[in-house]
């Protein structure tokens, strides 16, 4: 178990200075996510244009993995439509859970999350924001949970 693999500089930086942090007014959709295990809570706001994410913000309280994952996600999904977002999440999920998954170049900074797979208890922290984004895209406004 290597802590440096989990808490890479990119993760620590995005935890300390989360990007796209705050609320989005007006927004087209938002969703709340909750991880009862650690009390992580976050809300994702979206503004859509032509079926794609024009702007995105998130706000909430969480651990470094959850905060950094959400911050990195908001940077990665701008301009993408739902299909592209879900495809990206599929690759992230594989990266978080499969020992042999190799991050491809298109993941960019999101590849920093690969260290999480050594810490199974923390996978939920990294995936909460993606579930929440999925709910925002799908249902407009709803609460999702990782339990």
């Amino acid at each position, binding site marked *: 178990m290597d802590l440096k693999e989990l*808490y890479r500089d990119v993760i620590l930086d995005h935890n300390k200075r989360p990007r796209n942090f705050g609320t989005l007014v007006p927004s087209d959709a938002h969703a709340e996510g909750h991880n009862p*295990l*650690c009390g992580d809570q976050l809300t994702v706001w979206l503004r859509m244009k032509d079926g794609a994410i024009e702007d995105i913000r998130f706000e909430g309280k*969480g651990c470094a993995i959850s*905060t950094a994952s959400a911050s990195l996600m908001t940077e990665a999904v701008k301009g993408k439509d739902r299909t592209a977002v879900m495809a990206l999440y599929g690759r992230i999920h594989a990266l978080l859970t499969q020992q042999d998954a190799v991050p491809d170049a298109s993941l960019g900074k999101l590849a920093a999350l690969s260290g999480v797979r050594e810490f199974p208890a923390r996978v939920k922290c990294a995936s909460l924001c993606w579930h929440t984004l999925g709910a925002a895209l799908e249902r407009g406004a709803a609460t999702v949970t990782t339990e």
Partner: protein
Amino acid sequence: MSATASLAAPRPAFDAARVRRDFPILEQRVNGRPLVYLDSAASGQRPLPVLRAVERYETHCHANVHRGVHALSQAATEAFEGARERVRRFINAASVREIVFVRGTTEAINLVAQSFGRPRLAPGEEILITALEHHANIVPWQMVCEQTGATLKVAPIDRRGELVLDRFLELLSPRTRVVAVAQVSNALGTVLPVKQITDAAHARGAVVLIDGAQAIPHSRIDVRELGCDFYAFSGHKLYGPTGIGVLYGREELLAAMPPWQGGGDMIRTVSFEKTTYNDLPWKFEAGTPNISGAVGLAAAMDYVKDLGLAAIAGHEQRLLELATAGLARIAGIRIIGTAVRKASVLSFTMEGCHPHDLGTILDAEGVAIRTGHHCAMPVMTFFDIPATARASFGCYNTEEDVEALLAALAKAREVFG
């Protein structure tokens, strides 16, 4: 004479290193480091005498209890009822009829809420708890309030995590039927003045339940001295097995309460027209009980009695003080729960580092602590934090464990800058 003897021979220091050798699970390495187990408030580990008692029961005595005339059934019944007598002695109850075996504290409180509370409570009547209760001493009362129309009242705590006794006494009214309080807060370590609470509640005619889950491993409990009506605790916090716990109830109250669950063992006669119930305490023990659990719990009680509860408590208090002083030297640490009287629990946060991250970093160093809301979400809300990290101490923890905790926290500080 004994006083003279104890003056002449100073009590030897508590030998935690020797005690530790009784707990085989602590010998392992975790993530390449020697295990430092600081999560006894969640669950204590079991010493060899407990493991051996359970093994001996399983390999020599097991059969169903109160059933057969064959030798094993009698051996099992003797082991089970013998355990009940040892529990009675441990908490100084007047009679084994007052000792009900349950799965744990949670089940004990639910039993009282449903069997004592539900038939008696009426709209306008009140149940009084405190703001530092575990969910197990909140939710069963909320459920019974929904069923009966009674109202749940909550006495506040202050910024140190101490019960505001004046407010508690104000909230105690002629409408209060039940007072249910923890003796020690699992999230904060606060020791509550349960004797004073009990006396005040009785003066108002209320019945008192004490949640002793966190108190039982740290202090000698004498239910008659406390004067409480119900006392609930779990075996696994006292170095016994999981799935076994005790509800103590004053005989007069238990006798007047209807059974909680129906089934075998809790009846005297069954016909389709009318069933009559068994005597205390079996009236409340439907179904085959956790026999080996009771045997293990009694062995655990013998074990802590041999070590001396006062000696254990004194040792844990030294560790708590040492750890508290050490935490104060680490930048950004805030101790949550600074009551004057605390037992064995040290809850804290580190600025810039979420408790969940702290838990992971400490685990990588072999240090096991609890992180989260500790089943006390209202306490977290009161302190406006999502969670805390919590180190808790047991009879097997040493000063080296405290040093390992402090070193691991320094490492976390390093990682999170």
